[in-house]
């Protein structure tokens, strides 16, 4: 996406981040499917002299870096549940029934159907909901795979109700037991293998059935799934509900700086009448970078 940003910055204030008076963004591609971060309008008159009471608020980007002493506050352990709970995969119940998921998925689809005027709009909505999960899975799965079997100390740090005592909240971190982080994937093939392997296994309990490079076009790859798990309860219709999975894959690849478009295509084969091919079209900048770097 090509962006032009014009900013008139108040030069009497030195913070680059906090003080643009006017920001105009022109999106030259007209692609509004994934708007950038929702920006609060920063008005100098309100942000100057705005005081925040120490210990009651978090980071406010209209103010900038705040200088506060570490350990200054005793936080409410309940409000911190998200941060107290270990990221270790065994810290939560691993599974729910697939019918519970199917009911939920059907509701998500009908929500999209009832609020849309066209099939494309429905698919875009499902795609967008999947897309939001992409960056989360990208970070979570890579981070988890950095944790080696030996660093299982955190496995028992399952503190759903863990007290937020001084120093306590940091006890069950996984990071402190990681000796080497898994490498970020730099090449197209590496990131595709990540999608086809760990991501598919995480979501569907098995690897993708095939990973193929297009013989006709340089920038196209395909992940094949013979039996899509999520859409097996949705009837064959004109709406492609696999758009949700497309969104997830696109979100992961975009997040890892491999911008692309992902689409799903039903391509039944002899034994697999629900077989779906996920077509991944990388932007040309990805290939250029690859040619330049590696």
């Amino acid at each position, binding site marked *: 996406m090509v962006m032009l940003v014009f900013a008139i910055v108040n030069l009497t204030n030195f913070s680059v981040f906090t003080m643009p008076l006017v920001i105009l963004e022109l999106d030259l591609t007209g692609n509004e499917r994934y708007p950038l971060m929702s920006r609060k309008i920063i008005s100098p008159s309100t942000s100057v002299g705005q005081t925040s009471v120490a210990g009651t608020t978090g980071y406010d980007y209209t103010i900038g870096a705040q200088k506060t002493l570490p350990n200054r506050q005793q936080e409410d352990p309940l409000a911190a549940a998200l941060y107290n*709970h270990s990221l270790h995969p065994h810290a939560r119940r691993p599974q729910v*029934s697939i019918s519970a998921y199917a009911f939920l998925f059907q509701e998500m689809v009908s929500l999209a159907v009832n609020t849309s005027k066209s099939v494309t709009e429905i698919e875009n909505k499902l795609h967008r909901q999947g897309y939001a999960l992409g960056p989360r899975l990208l970070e979570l799965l890579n981070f988890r795979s950095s944790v080696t079997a030996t660093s299982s100390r955190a496995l028992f740090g399952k503190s759903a109700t863990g007290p937020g005592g001084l120093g306590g909240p940091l006890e069950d971190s996984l990071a402190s037991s990681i000796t080497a982080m898994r490498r970020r994937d730099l090449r197209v093939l590496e990131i595709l293998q990540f999608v086809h392997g760990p991501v598919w296994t995480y979501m569907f309990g098995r690897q993708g059935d095939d990973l193929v490079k297009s013989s006709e076009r340089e920038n196209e790859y395909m992940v094949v799934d013979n039996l899509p798990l999520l859409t097996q309860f949705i009837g064959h219709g004109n709406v492609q509900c696999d758009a949700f999975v497309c969104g997830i894959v696109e979100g992961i690849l975009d997040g890892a700086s491999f911008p692309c478009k992902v689409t799903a295509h039903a391509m039944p084969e002899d034994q697999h009448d629900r077989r779906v091919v996920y077509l991944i079209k990388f932007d040309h900048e990805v290939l250029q970078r690859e040619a330049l770097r590696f």
Partner: protein
Amino acid sequence: MSAGSANAAASSVNVSSSTKSLRVFGDEIWKNKTAKINAELFTLTYGSIVSQLSTDFQRNFTKVNEKLFAMGYNIGTRLIEDFLARTALPRCENMVKTSEVISKCAFKIFLNITPQVTNWANNKEAFSLLLDENPLSDFVELPMDAVKELWYSNILCGVLKGALEMVQLDCDVFFVNDVLRGDQSTEIRIKLNRVLKDEIPAGED
């Protein structure tokens, strides 16, 4: 997903009497007769729905609650068939029995959790479910503006309402507490209004 319902029907005859065997029964179905999926994918998908609704309704969380309830209601009316087909449990004779089935079978089979049944009303027609764990709300921190308004897992109330109605139990189902809001527990209240007239006997085709 009703594979094995015949076996379930055979075993249900023995277990329908005592609470303990209901638990064993629920565990058995979960272990051997339930296809499963990653719970975190479930959590994340639900999260994506709630955050989408919050945006769609411009952060009017009362409306989000209503919408989640309505979605749950839709699910409940369909889920009950699936549930009865898989468990082949007979009609519950009273609310005490109903509460046990909800906690030890329904929640177990679908979400792999077993909420505590507690806080019975004197007339034994209203009780609470305490959810020690809630697979819908893992990874969630409510934003400031939602803390007082949003019942994040309200879809569960809708599901219970819809499912109970299909077995002729007209109930009020609502959240009383949620740890996401800083409460000590997550509590769903279920209150029987009346038993509906039998038009089609439940559990029979």
